[in-house]
């Protein structure tokens, strides 16, 4: 009797929890299956990137709980990648913006629910393609300040050594 009373809330909890955890899955399955280079950021690592302590940057990332960034090895948004975004549409994501043609490919989709906003996108420029998944509350009003910080190269200077390591690794693989 007690078990049947408990089973109802457990059933609803599992039902609610599955979509919460599943939303990053389409991009993760696609990119990790293809061994794409991945950067994963959580609140602590996001704060670490801000080596110069830019306050605008901290305000933007304050509500973000997870960011996945993949550097893709595709030359365009092809059919398999397009199907990833079709899956997000099926999951209830809206297409916020899209730019395509003329060597450009940008897709930004989002799903906003109380306390859990999610954004997924891909951007390709000059043959370099990146995809991202972001979970958390994004402070859009602080982005202009962040862009200013980026233009001053204050925020991403920590990424330079990472890029060096990645390039060295690539050269090593080519030599092998």
């Amino acid at each position, binding site marked *: 009797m007690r078990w049947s009373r408990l089973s109802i809330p457990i059933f609803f909890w599992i039902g609610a929890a599955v979509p919460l955890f599943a939303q990053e899955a389409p991009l993760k399955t696609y990119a990790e299956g293809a061994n794409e280079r991945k950067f994963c950021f959580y609140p602590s690592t996001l704060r670490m990137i801000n080596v110069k302590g830019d306050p605008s940057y901290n305000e933007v990332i304050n509500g973000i709980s997870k960011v996945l960034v993949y550097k893709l090895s595709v030359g365009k948004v092809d059919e398999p990648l397009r199907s990833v975004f079709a899956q997000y549409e099926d999951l209830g994501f*809206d*297409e*916020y*913006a*899209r*730019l*395509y*043609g*003329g*060597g*450009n490919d940008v897709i*930004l989709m*989002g799903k*906003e629910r109380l306390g859990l906003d999610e954004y997924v996108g891909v951007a390709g420029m000059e043959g370099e393609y990146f995809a991202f998944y972001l979970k958390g509350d994004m*402070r*859009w*009003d602080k982005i*202009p300040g962040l862009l200013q910080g980026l233009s001053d190269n204050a925020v991403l200077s920590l990424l330079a050594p990472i890029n060096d390591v990645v390039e060295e690794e690539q050269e090593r693989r080519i030599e092998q």
Partner: protein
Amino acid sequence: MKILGNTKKIIFTAALLLTTLALSAQGELINKYLDKYAEDESLVKVSINSRMFSLFTEMEGGTEEEKEFLEAVAKLKGLKVLASDSLGKGQSRSLFNQATKDVDGAGYEELMTVKDAEEDVKFSIKEKSGIIEELIMVVGGNKNFVFLSLYGEIDLKTVSKLASTMRVDGLKSLEKLDEGN
């Protein structure tokens, strides 16, 4: 009592259907062009939906003018663009002529036309109850072609300011509307 309830439901459903039809009509013409040229790599296609515009409401306007601007931008529902700046003269003119013909045929009112040696710009609008619901801009030059549709609740002054922010050169011609007044 039950009959009254059913009537309310019917009126509500009809109103909902009419609203849906009105919303789907906005941007219909440019959607046809975006579909037609979806695979044409020489043309850049841009689509921005209402959520991107409503994000402006989350920004903090400093001055009174900035606040007014952000409020007006938040009323926009979408922006779609089909453009290229590397077409042959014949192709850009042919696209311009076809697009302006289709815009006129779809019942848009001509708002303003700017012609110079470099390019022709034509603005058309769809208005309902004194509110501009859609603004279409077609630009045809020697190499360039732009077909832009902006929809929602449109304030033309805001559009020219938005144009400077987003670097959409042709839309700046809307400033000439003020000069004419």
